[in-house]
Structures are given as structure tokens and as C-alpha cells.
């Protein structure tokens, strides 16, 4: 900060001569730009200035800026638009809400030019309540899950229904899946360890005959893949085994009729287009194979239960 101040001081000293030397066809105007502090000043001037074209000098006390510009190359609107896109309102432009929200707390000036919304715009509502589960269906699964009502929330059923002996295994699987959606290798490793433990604790005798049979066949693949995942903390490595884990898990979930609704989903891109599947408690797509890179890539191939 200090060095910036010194720099600013030097700039100020030099500016009177330097500006006029660089910018041709100069015009100077005084305009209001809303902001608070020293930091605002740095940002406003940094985004406003363009070499040989425009020079902005903002005063944080008066909120007035002197803009000097080459009238052949630019105009005040262009300069003020740049400044607004960085988060600072003027009497000509309002900053995008996102840009304003990105400003430091000390920079979040009072937006006196921003008018109240007078009409109940449904779109506004959507944005304000975006943390609610009632979200728009994301792109990829839109066509597939059209029939599902927004209010239908599968996770609510979880406490009520239980897949019995295998429930802990399923729960740990979903934890692991969520960790991979976040591309969080460490959490995935922890979740995989818990999954290995859960697999070990299953009392086969209490399973239904059909499930028992399937469990005997699938258990090895489950624990092997889960162990491999727990040994790594690199999400990309873990994903390879996760695809191997999801297949037998799907066979088991299919047999457990008592559990909550589960969605069998597919990412057709993974593994060079060979594709890979996963299971999720939500109908909307959150792709564990690519994480945020391709969050909504994929589609539901089967609704189980």
C-alpha cells in the first residue's frame, strides 16, 4: 500500500506534464464516480487509464473524477463503462451486481443511483432465493427429468426409508461421490476408507437371499476399488476406480427395494468417450468424473425405486 501511495505521489507530480505530452487531442471533463476509499481510487484509476488514450484522476473526498482523454480515440462513456464493469457506479452507468459484490467490503459504497425494483420480476426472485432447492433443472438433464416436480426432494425420504444392512455402504458411496463432484481428493480418500470399513461390517446373513447372492459376487470389486481410491488423494486417479466401483454398486442398489429413490446417471464422455456411470440421490446432474469442469454433463439413464 505504501509503495502505491509513493507511486501515486510521483505520478501526481509528473502527471501534469506527462499526460499532456502523451494524450493528443485532449479533452477534459469532470464526472462523478461513486466509491469510498483509497482502494477504490486505485481500482478506478487503473481500469480507467489507457496509455495514450485516457487518464482518470479520482478524488475520494468529492467523488469527482477528472478524465482527460483523446477525443479522436475514445469518449467519456467508454471510460465510465470500463469503470462501471469494475464495480463503480457513475451517473451514466450502473455496475453489474456481480462486479459490485466482488468489491472489498470497505469499497462497497452506497449505490444511490440504483433504483428499487418496482415490479415482481420472477427472474429477480430466482436469483435471491438461489440457495433454495427449487432450482431450475440444469441443462443436461432437462429433457430427461422433465416430469419431475421441483418440490419432489428425494433426500427427504432418506430418514424414513432404509435399505437395511447395506444402507451404510450406500451412504458412504454417496459421500465419496460428493467428494469427487467437488474434485476433493483428500475427502474422497477419507470417504473411501469409511466405505471400506462399512463394507467390512455388513452382516451377510441378514441380507435377503437375492441381495446376499449379489453381495457375494460384487463385494470383492467393491472393496478393491474402494481401497484403491482411499490410497490416492488425486481425484483424477480416484475417478478411474470410482467408475469400477459404481457398476457393482448399481447392481446392489437395484436389488434393495426399500431404499430412497436413486438416479443412475451417465457421463458419456469419460474414458475417451467410453462413458462411465454413477449413482446419485438427486435427479439433477452433478458429474463426479469431471467436477466443475463439466458439472452438468451427463444424463439420468435409470430411476431406481
Amino acid at each position, binding site marked *: *500500500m505504501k509503495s502505491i501511495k509513493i507511486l501515486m505521489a510521483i505520478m501526481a507530480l509528473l502527471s501534469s506534464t506527462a499526460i499532456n505530452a502523451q494524450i493528443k487531442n485532449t479533452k477534459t471533463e469532470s464526472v462523478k464516480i461513486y466509491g469510498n476509499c483509497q482502494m477504490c481510487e486505485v481500482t478506478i484509476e487503473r481500469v480507467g487509464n489507457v496509455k495514450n488514450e485516457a487518464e482518470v484522476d479520482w478524488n475520494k473526498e468529492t467523488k469527482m473524477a477528472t478524465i482527460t482523454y483523446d477525443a479522436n480515440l475514445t469518449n467519456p462513456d467508454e471510460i465510465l463503462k470500463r469503470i462501471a464493469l469494475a464495480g463503480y457506479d457513475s451517473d451514466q*452507468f450502473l455496475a453489474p451486481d456481480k462486479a459490485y459484490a466482488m468489491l472489498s467490503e470497505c469499497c462497497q459504497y452506497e449505490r444511490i443511483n440504483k433504483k*428499487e425494483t418496482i*415490479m415482481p*420480476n420472477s427472474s429477480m426472485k*430466482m436469483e435471491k432465493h438461489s440457495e433454495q432447492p427449487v432450482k*431450475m433443472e440444469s*441443462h443436461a438433464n432437462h429433457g430427461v427429468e422433465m416430469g419431475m416436480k421441483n418440490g419432489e426432494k428425494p433426500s427427504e425420504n432418506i430418514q424414513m426409508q432404509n435399505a437395511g444392512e447395506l444402507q451404510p455402504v450406500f451412504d458412504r458411496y454417496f459421500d465419496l461421490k460428493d467428494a469427487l463432484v467437488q474434485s476433493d481428493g483428500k475427502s474422497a480418500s477419507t470417504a473411501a476408507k469409511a466405505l471400506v470399513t462399512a463394507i467390512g461390517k455388513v452382516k451377510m446373513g441378514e441380507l435377503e437371499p437375492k441381495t446376499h447372492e449379489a453381495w457375494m459376487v460384487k463385494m470383492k470389486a467393491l472393496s478393491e476399488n474402494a481401497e484403491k481410491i482411499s490410497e490416492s488423494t488425486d481425484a483424477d486417479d480416484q475417478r478411474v476406480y470410482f467408475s469400477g466401483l459404481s457398476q457393482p454398486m448399481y447392481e446392489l442398489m437395484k436389488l434393495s427395494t426399500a431404499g430412497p429413490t436413486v438416479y443412475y446417471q451417465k457421463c458419456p464422455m469419460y474414458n475417451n468417450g467410453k462413458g462411465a456411470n454413477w449413482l446419485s440421490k438427486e435427479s439433477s446432474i*452433478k458429474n463426479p468424473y469431471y467436477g466443475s469442469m*463439466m458439472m452438468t454433463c451427463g444424463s439420468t439413464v435409470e430411476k431406481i425405486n
Partner: protein
Amino acid sequence: MKVNKNISKASQLIVVLILLNTNLYAQKVVRYDLYVKDTLVNFSGKEKRAIAVNGQIPMPTLTFTEGDTAEIYVHNQLKESTSLHWHGLFLPNKEDGVPFLTQMPIEPGTTHKYTFPIIQHGTHWYHSHSGLQEQIGMYGSMILKKREDDPGLRAGIDDIPTVPIILSEWTDYKPENVHRMLHNASDWFAIKKGTTQSYAEAIREGHFKTKVANEWKRMLAMDVSDIYYDRFLINGKNESQLSQFKAGDRVRLQISNGGASSYFWLTYAAGKMTVVANDGNDVDPVEVDRLIIGVSETYDVIVTIPAENTSYEFLATAEDRTKSASIYIGSGIKQLVSPLPKLKYFEGMKMMNDMMKMNGDMNDMGMNMSLQQMDMNTVMYPEISGEKKPMKMDEMPEMDMKNMDHSSNGSSNTDIVTLNYAMLKSPTKTTLPASAPVREMRFELTGNMNRYVWSMDNKVLSESDKILIKKGEIVRITLFNNSMMRHPMHLHGHDFRVINGQGEYAPLKNVMDIMPMETNVIEFEANVEGDWFFHCHILYHMMAGMNRVFSYEKQEPNPLLPDKNWAYKKLQKESNQLHLMAQNDFATNGNDGMAMLQNTRWSFGSEWRLGYNDEHGYESETHVGRYLGRMQWLMPFVGFDWRYRKLGHGEVEQNIFGQKSTKDNRAQFSVGVAYTLPMLFILQTEVYQDGNVRVQLRREDIPVSKRLRANFMVNTDKEYMVGLNYIAGKNIGFRTHYDSDMGFGVGLMLNY
């Protein structure tokens, strides 16, 4: 079916008109006179040639009401021929406006009358179908209104204020030159856009391996669009305002993308937009945060003005996100919308590497990828997949926890609702007659970026006959995009159903955007006879031959086109023209250059190295070759070499095979083959008439840094060359090289 019904309705109306002479349904003849004239425009600070109609760019908005009869007189005051195509309209074939397919070109100084009944409604547009005229101004909105008694009138949608919006782009380069540069794989546009994706940039971003893998698969730098534009325009302006609207108003924007090659992202500063129609056909309203409008598509979108004394920015951002155009809706202070962040090109390159097989095929995902639902480019969108790097500390000196939260929320947002084709649903049933016979077709969209060849099933129009269809049958087309670019495929004269999971309510469209690797199915009823164009609407892809013609069997002759066979040959020729490229390095040790004429398959090229004295010698190699295969990596050729170099007395040169030759005045014919190897090395093997063999390996244009290109050559005649050139301008550069014959040289390189 709809068309027939409408025709009969229209004819009934005409009868009513004649008998009663009333204007009951506003059915009437609506006449427009369009004067097409050369003009000078200044969109970028430089005066350039353009074409204006009635003195304006875009062309005037033509408005009709369903039931009207259109009479449009085109007065060609240009020095070249022209034509006008009514995009998305159902009309008799001879009014469709494709020169050499449905009419003869409108010659300079003549007037052509188009006339057709208006039998549909919706947002459409019109443009020149001659050469590249669309790029320099010949596009305009065409709005067909519903009749006041239309049973399909929708309250709150059809009864609110409308504004026609036409999007376009401007380049200061002549479009013919743009086209030529694309065919010559010039990377000048990439330099202007900052998307060279050179090795230096790759290393800086930690993507060296990605770049190597990319070149190993013989790909050039990837991009979502090919051309650098100086300006993007909404209704002919980069920024404008609709100040007639006030708080509380709802406005229906009738948007057409009249750009020659640009897709646009549409976003709005007051939040969500409601899509109510697409390609002139109503769809059930859908609320979205943003949508991408393909080249030549139309969308009707309702926006609202939520606050007093504020105007809201409606932003059209080119898909490559280099620039944008804005229109502010409302009056008062301008509320801006966040611009779309720059693309992460190396992520895109990595994705491409994964998707493309070694033989140049894209992974075929079958129906898993369709209807724009899975945008592979998402990996490049920072607003969805997160910022490239965490924000620099100097930009956020006092980063507290609150801001950290913001940046993570703000930058990787998966809740943005983007429109895709699966979300489009017709409000009425669109099913086709169940009894009609169905003809199935499949097209693979193919392309070769390196040589800018765009085709279907690896055939360009000049290699394809018309596709015969029968009136009354249903044509069902499966399209698979096996190329690296997206293609907006447009069918003339018909709407097709897009099979998108909406069953009987499948939406009707006339342009289908198909992303790389996508497979989509469309179907239409063959109900208007004639010859109808089916093509990629990216102008430069169309001119490269990505076209087909559907021709009705046993159709009536077209009075405007007496010799159809001759005309079709002309049409075919138009999209397979020869392109010239030439360059010469005026160096201290001699002149080093080449000139080449190429079309889709053939290449006529000559290279020369001319020293300034006999010791350095003079040589030239001329090759006539034909590119084979879809990716065109193989080129057999015949050649003629001539060289003269004064060697020491009786001195003889020997190649590594022990074959001897004198360079002293040697003239030889040869046959050979050139093959593009991974890493874009070209391996050339040649046998001369005297039995000598030469094998040569070379690579040109290795992108070292943004403007620096390296090249090398080595061959079995023990000749070699290494060079480095700096691209200073579109046609100028500096080059330094060392040549085994001519030694070290520095020079000025000019290219065309």
C-alpha cells in the same frame, strides 16, 4: 399440411378480396422497393466498401401480415450481380433467391421482382445469397405478423411491443480476402484475437504437454470461431438505446443472427429472459439466464424493465468473446451486465485432444450428445468451470473471507440456466402425416481445419449430385458432426421437426446448430416442389462447399432457370474456387519464396530459391498434387525441378543413397508423395526421371510464441534449412534463416 391449408386459406382470402374489395384480414399486396448500391462505411475508424440497401445497413426491416402478398422489387445498382433469399420462408421455389439454383443472378442495372404469398408468421430475415455480399451489409429483418384473428395469439406474448433486432459483425478486410486467408491457414486472425496458443503461451500456462499432444494429433490451434472482426453490431450499431420504454414494460425482441460466421451469447442486465419463439415458430415460454444464437437462427425473447429511470443492457457477445455489442432497453442510467470472461483455450485444446482420435475422427457419442445439451466448450467457460488462476493478490489487496466466498461462488457457477434445443417445445402438435412414406438419410459433417475444407460425407457440393426426394414423403435426416467446429445447418423452404424428446410437440426450426460430436435427428414433409438448398450457414463454410441440394422428382420446369444442368455446374463451381497464396523472403542471401493455387482437392504450387550469384545458384520446384482422404494428409504429386548452380570444375554432388547428380543446370521431372506426419511434419518422397530419389522432412510455422514461427527442412540430398520468422503484419514479416546452399540470410518477408 399446414402449408397446404394456408395456401387454400390465402386463395380464399384473395377471392374475398376480389369480390368484396374489403380489407377484412389485412390481406393485401405489400410492395417494397429495394435499391442495392455500393457505399462506404466507417464502423472501425476506417472507410471501407460495403453494400447498402435503400442507403442503410442493415437492410430495411420488411413487415408483412400473414395473408398478405409480398411484392419486392430489387433494383441492382451494383457493379456485380446480386440476389435476395428470404430466410425461413415458405414460398414457391423460383422466389427462393439462390442464384444458379432457383433463378439467374440479378445482373447490374436490372430489376428483379420477387412475389409470393405470406403463409406463415414469425421472426425471419433476408440476405444476399450471392458470394460473400452478406458479410458487407446485405442482411435485414423480415417480420411476419400474426393476423388479428389468429387463434394462436398468445396474451402477454403477441400483444406487447416488439423490436426487430438483427445481429451482425464487421471486418475491415474484404470478405474475399478473409476467405482466401482461411484457406491458406493464415493465423493472422488468431494473432489479432490473441489466440495463437503458441508453445511459449502453453508453457506459461502449464500446458506444454497439451500443446504437444495437440500437434501430435495434427491439429492447429483450436478456436470456436475463425475470423477476427473489428466490430459487432446490433441493428448496425455497436451501442444503441431503446429509450421509448419505461419501468414495468415488457418488450419482445425479435432477434435474427445475420452474422456471416459468428454465434452470439445473449445476456440481459435485468436477469432472466423468456424465450417465446425460435426460427419464426412459437415455443412454450422458457426462462433462461442466457442463450446462444447460431448463425442465421432467430429467437423471440421477452425482457422486462424492472426499475424507474434505468435502462438495461442487452448484450450480444461473440462466441469467441473477443468483443460484443450492446443495446440499452429503457431510458435513464445504464445498468450493465457482466461481460463474459475470456475463454480458457488450453482447456479447450485438452478437451479436443481427448475427443479426437489419431485418424482425425471425432469420438462418435451417438445420441448421447445432441441438442446443445452438452456443451463441450464449457471447459473453456470461466463463469462455469471456474477461473483459470486464483485472483492476483495485487488486484485484491485486502482479501478477506467474504471476498474469498464471493470469488468461489461467482466464478464457478453451475446454476446458470443456458437454453438448449431440448428445452424448446411447440405449443401445438407438429406431427407429420403418419401414412406418408419415410425416407431416411444420414449425413456426416466433415471438415479439415488445416485446409479449411468443409463438407458432408467428405464431399463438397462440386462432388455431389442433387439429392432426389419425392413430394409427399417424409425426409428424416440424421446428422453427425465429425468435425471440430459447430455448424448451423439450414434448409431452404421448409421447417423441420427437431426430434428432441418433446414427442408430438417437437419444435419446428429451419436452422439446426450441431456441435462437434453431436448427433441430431430432424424430419420434414416434402411439400413444396423445387430445388432447395441445404447448407451450413457459416458463410465461409458454405463457400467452401458444405452444401447439398434437395431436388423434387418430376418437378415443373423453373421459368427463371431454363438450363438447370448448366446452372448447377455454375453453382458447384462457385463453392470450389481456386485460392492463391504467395510469399517471398527478400533476404541478404537470396530470394526464397513460393506461390500456390489450391482448391478443395488440387494444389498447383511452385517454390523457388534464387541466389544473387551463380555459386549460390537458382532453383525451383513445381508440384501439381491432389489431396487424398478426409483429413487430406496424403498428397501424391507430379513435379518439375529446375536448378542451376555453378559448382567447382567437374564437381558432383552425392546424396545419402550414393546417387550422384550435378546441380549445374539440372532439369528433372518427378513423381512423389507428401504425407503429413504427427507433429505436422511433412514427409515428402520423390523419384526423379534420372532415378534419383529424394526424401525430405519439413515443418513450417511452428508457433514458438505469439508472433514467432520456426521452420526447418532436411533432405537426403544433404540439404537443410532452419529459419525463424516474426509476423509483423498481415502481409509482412522478418525472417532469418540458414540454408545449406545459400548460407545465412536475413530478410523481409512479404506474403499474400
